[in-house]
């Protein structure tokens, strides 16, 4: 029996003394505000106070809590400092997905208790032990400063008609700062069975099961072992149905380290105590191919019968005459570039649970794609899609990887065959081993320009290591050739790509689908060309930037809303000033050299030439409130808020009247997946249409004209135009099947066209544009790079909620810094968050966001996507800055100190 004081109240529980305090808090004590991200002290999400001092609850034996006072996020509201911090985090937008927020808040309280007016340096020291993957940390630091000063500015809810453009706090933010938001592991009922996967330890291996019945018999509490033969439907899944190739459980041979062959189902204690090495299986390790080069060797083992040469798919875009143009260019440059596997490293590992309800299955899990999960799980279970209900939990970060199925089939199958609810929470190593990564790329490029600085030609070849299964490999292979030109006019262009199968963890979607890799090549090549031409790198980009009337490399002319030039122009004052300052600094500094680099990008919003509709339902309730069936999963980016802002203004009623119906395949129509920077654009347009349609219905009801104003007051709808005021008691009106007195539903699917054999056509209805400027300091003795600042200009068409847009930009930049400088996953090595490094609060410099608003007629109120756009230009801007500082070109990222030093030593004089 362990007794201590928890948030001011005496508690006593019957936990084993060696159990992690985090588990005791979350389990028997029911305080799930304390999050588990790694169980190794690497992420700080489980930070609690023990006698006033911050500690990772995952590292504290429950016994050590005996007699102490423990404070968790749930206890913060009781103190003035804690409550102020919670308000400040909410008002500043310091919580995005919110999974790190409890740890951040608790660590910040510990600081403010010791230091009432902390400096920025002290704030960073205090929060350095909590990782955030969403925010880039800037708004967190500002929130702590606000709380310390006691000056918290919470924007009031906007007046009707003024929701779009308002800097309001996220509508779903209260629960995130209170610690009551329920993520995948937070709503698991106490009586569930638990599931553990048995995974391959080798990159490639044959295997044979031993005596599974005997294993179950000798392990009390284990009720079932699931393997491929238990799957009632098909043992195959994949996000792109025609390419689906990944088994739920491998059969005969595993193709990557971490691939599941079986799942053990049992009572919690039995699963927790399971020594996985006792599982009856014999492995026969086989020789793998892990690199693109090895997989392309004609003698290489073939990953999949249907994919000769280990080539999953090819992509191609071509226009003009590349060979001739390259030959005729006044200057040509060429280069080879290489990027690494990058891990999404959301702080919430995959988690969820399922229960069987009659002949249906309900799955509550962390996901970015409820309807895709539903359809794929249904096929695996041999059920109709409608027999599966997906209830997305709050998502503690996704960034693309939670588009793919992870634990859904395991918990569904376990619940189905046992009849009891079943839950699964991935360990951090399991998440790192088995879920998708950013594709490593090997890219070769040649570019030519005319003497007067016009881009003439580009010839690009890119190979992408797609791992053992297709996942989003085809998307990367198809998206890259459309984007490898960057946002420039390139009259003669050829891009060929291949997605290559290897015995590595599958590569999938990760913020930018291959485009962040290509800009590493293209934006450095632009600098090389500018240097050869003797042109200013920014001017050179402006000179070649796309406009409303020039064609992209697929022949598309946008007509409006092409803001790339505006983005570059917005950077110009600081570009000039910072370049000069860096050069002045370098004149007197030997070891440390400063540099300033720039990079641009464009990025198509939505699926590439494929349908991706969203449907929004918007209903007026008899009590005078509005129900917005908002099926776009908010993974922290803010769709719960942005979509509601759009709907409110389209309807012309106050945002505060809207109640959100959260994503749930039984309750919300399909809004597609949260990916491809599509939710603000696609679901936003559906919301705009639904709002306008509902408005029309209400106006018709009142026989009023288009210019009338609506208002709702405790169950009464009031419609005013110039001459007439009509009031309607809503309770008197008939109700539809949903219980609404009026309801509108609208669908939007972006107008695109298929690409022809040369990749010509309209792949996207709208692109987002942006340019980053990076200022760095390089330690030329040790190759260390310190980013001093980032200025990020983004054309978002219309900033529906500027605070959320800034949040996307700052978070994207932070991920870009990680990709540029430190992030590299090697299958089989460093499957934890102390070997796989992401930026901490001390690694992200001040980020200045410049919002450019060149409205696109395609988007809601002119808006475009920003989710992925924000990350894309950061890495090449940093690489160009390193070159400006040192004269060294880093062609392989991450630009670790070692690689930077090697590049400095081999730079051409």
């Amino acid at each position, binding site marked *: 029996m362990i007794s201590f004081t928890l948030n001011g109240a005496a508690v006593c529980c019957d936990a084993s003394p060696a159990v992690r305090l985090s588990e005791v808090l979350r389990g028997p004590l029911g305080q799930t505000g304390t999050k588990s991200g790694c*169980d190794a002290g690497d992420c700080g999400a489980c930070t609690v106070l023990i006698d006033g001092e911050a500690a990772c609850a995952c*590292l504290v034996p429950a016994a050590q809590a005996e007699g102490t006072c423990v404070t968790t996020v749930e206890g913060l509201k009781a103190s003035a400092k804690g409550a102020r911090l919670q308000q400040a985090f909410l008002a500043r937008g310091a919580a995005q997905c919110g999974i790190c927020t409890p740890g951040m808040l608790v660590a910040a309280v510990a600081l403010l208790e010791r230091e009432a007016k902390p400096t920025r340096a002290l704030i960073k020291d205090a929060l350095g032990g909590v990782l955030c993957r969403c925010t880039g940390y800037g708004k967190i630091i500002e929130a702590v400063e606000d709380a310390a000063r006691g000056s918290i500015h919470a924007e009031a809810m906007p007046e009707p008609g003024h929701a779009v453009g308002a800097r309001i706090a996220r509508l779903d933010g209260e629960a995130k700062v209170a610690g009551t938001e329920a993520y995948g592991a937070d709503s698991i009922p106490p009586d569930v069975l638990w599931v553990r996967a048995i995974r391959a330890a080798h990159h490639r291996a044959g295997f044979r099961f031993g005596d599974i019945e005997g294993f179950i018999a000798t392990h009390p509490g284990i009720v079932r072992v699931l393997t491929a033969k238990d799957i009632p439907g098909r043992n195959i899944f994949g996000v792109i149905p025609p390419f689906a190739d990944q088994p739920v459980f491998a059969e005969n041979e595993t193709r990557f380290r971490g691939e599941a062959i079986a799942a053990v189902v049992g009572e919690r204690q039995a699963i927790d105590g399971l020594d996985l090495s006792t599982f009856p299986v014999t492995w026969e390790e086989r020789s793998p191919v892990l690199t693109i080069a090895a997989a392309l060797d004609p003698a290489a083992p073939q990953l999949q019968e249907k994919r000769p040469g280990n080539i999953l798919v090819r992509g191609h875009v071509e226009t003009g005459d590349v060979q001739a143009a390259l030959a005729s260019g006044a200057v040509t440059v060429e280069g080879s570039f290489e990027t690494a596997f990058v891990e999404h490293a959301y702080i919430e590992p995959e988690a969820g649970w399922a229960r069987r309800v009659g002949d249906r299955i309900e799955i509550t899990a962390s996901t970015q794609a409820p309807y895709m999960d539903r359809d794929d799980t249904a096929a695996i279970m041999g059920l109709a899609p409608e027999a599966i209900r997906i209830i997305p939990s709050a998502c503690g970060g996704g960034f693309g990887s939670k588009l793919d199925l992870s634990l859904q089939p395991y918990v569904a199958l376990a619940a189905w065959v046992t009849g009891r609810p079943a839950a699964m929470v991935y360990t951090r190593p399991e998440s790192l081993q088995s879920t998708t990564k950013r594709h490593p790329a090997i890219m070769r490029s040649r570019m030519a320009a005319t003497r007067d600085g016009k881009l003439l030609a580009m010839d690009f070849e890119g190979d992408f290591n797609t791992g053992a299964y297709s996942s989003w490999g085809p998307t990367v292979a198809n998206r890259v050739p459309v984007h490898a030109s960057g946002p420039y006019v390139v009259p003669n262009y050829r891009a060929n790509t291949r997605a290559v199968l290897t015995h590595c963890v599958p590569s999938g979607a990760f913020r930018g689908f291959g485009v962040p890799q290509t800009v590493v090549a293209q934006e450095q090549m632009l600098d090389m060309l500018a240097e050869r031409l003797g042109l200013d790198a920014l001017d050179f980009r402006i000179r070649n930037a796309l406009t409303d009337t020039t064609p992209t490399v697929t022949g598309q002319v946008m007509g409006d809303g092409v803001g790339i030039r505006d983005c570059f122009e917005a950077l110009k004052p600081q570009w000039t000033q910072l370049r000069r300052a860096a050069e002045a600094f370098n004149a007197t500094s030997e070891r440390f050299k400063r540099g300033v680099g720039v990079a641009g990008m464009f990025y198509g919003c939505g699926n590439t030439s494929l349908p991706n509709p969203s449907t929004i339902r918007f209903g007026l309730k008899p009590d005078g409130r509005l129900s917005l069936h908002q099926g776009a999963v908010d993974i922290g980016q803010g769709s719960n808020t942005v979509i509601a802002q759009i709907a409110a203004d389209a309807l012309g009623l106050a945002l505060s009247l809207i109640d959100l119906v959260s994503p749930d395949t039984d309750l919300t129509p399909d809004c597609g997946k949260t990916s491809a920077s599509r939710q603000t654009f696609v679901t936003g347009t559906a919301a705009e249409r639904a709002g306008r349609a509902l408005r029309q219905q209400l106006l018709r009801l009142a026989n009023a004209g288009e210019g009338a104003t609506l208002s709702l007051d405790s169950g009464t709808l009031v419609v005013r135009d110039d001459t007439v005021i009509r009031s309607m008691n809503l309770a008197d009106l008939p109700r539809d099947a949903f219980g609404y007195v009026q309801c509108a539903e609208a669908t939007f699917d972006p107008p695109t066209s298929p690409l022809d054999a040369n990749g010509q056509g309209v792949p996207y209805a709208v692109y987002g544009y942006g340019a980053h400027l990076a200022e760095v300091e390089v330690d030329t003795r040790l190759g260390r790079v310190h980013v001093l600042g980032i200025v990020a200009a983004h054309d978002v068409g219309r900033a529906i909620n500027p605070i959320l847009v800034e949040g996307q930009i700052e978070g994207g930049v932070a991920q870009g810094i990680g990709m540029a400088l430190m992030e590299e996953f090697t299958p089989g090595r460093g499957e934890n968050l102390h070997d796989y*490094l992401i930026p901490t609060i001390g690694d992200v410099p001040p980020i200045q966001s410049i919002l450019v608003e060149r409205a696109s007629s395609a988007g809601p109120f002119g808006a475009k996507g920003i989710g992925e756009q924000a990350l894309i230009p950061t890495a090449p801007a940093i690489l160009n800055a390193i070159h400006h500082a040192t004269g060294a070109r880093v062609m392989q990222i991450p630009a670790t*100190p070692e690689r930077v030093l090697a590049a400095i030593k081999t730079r051409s004089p």
Partner: protein
Amino acid sequence: MYARPKTIAEATHAMAAEGALAVGGGTDVYPAHVGRPLSRPLVDLSRVEGLRGISEMAECIRFGASTTWTDIVRAELPPAFDGLKAAAREVGSIQIQNRGTIAGNLCNASPAADGVPPLLSLDASVELASPTGRRVLPLASFITGYRRTALAPGEIVTAVIVPRPSPAARSAFVKLGARRYLVISILMAAAVLEIDSQGRIARAAVAVGAASPVAQRLPELEAELRGLAGKPSAIVAPRHLSGLAPIDDVRATAAYRLEAALSAVGEALDLAAGVA
């Protein structure tokens, strides 16, 4: 089994159990058991009386085994311990520093243990207790290899003892990592210098971590530094690193580590000499 001894005698008795594992702050034990059960008998040393705290004696300064890194950061200590304090601030995060103990850092015997280079440069010893008595080992003999120590079954560390340094001694610690916080060192260097009234180095102690299975002192360099005036980094040369044996791992290659060692040793010396 989970033992919660209150005395050193109870603790050593519990540690005599087959496979017993000592838990101090838990900051190394739990990360080593992610996703697998803690099935060994655990001996929780956190409540053993007299093991936590720093005491200054005439001849030495004694760090109780359970003294946390935060205790060290907050303690008033002579300037010779500035390097140790700087290392304490680099141990993981504040959350880790609040729980992780000085003895735990040594017993875990990681080549990248932040505490080891500064303690080596301070000529620290380790006090051990077992059911049969106590002994004191120089730190360099206590850590015997990669994650290996001289701890015998039933033995625990009770204190880390540092001979009282000269009031003139100054110290520094330099850590290279791939990011700012929560980072395992690529390389560390610690230096303690005594400078006489003529501005010459009277005594030098230099240690490098994460470049060999166990952090190493650099005796040839220390000898050459004696009597030197001016910037000590000027004389640091690759030959001084011949005792190191770095490896390639996820953090860096061996070659880079040697390059980094050369630089970091010079930096630590200059910082300690006040000429950085």
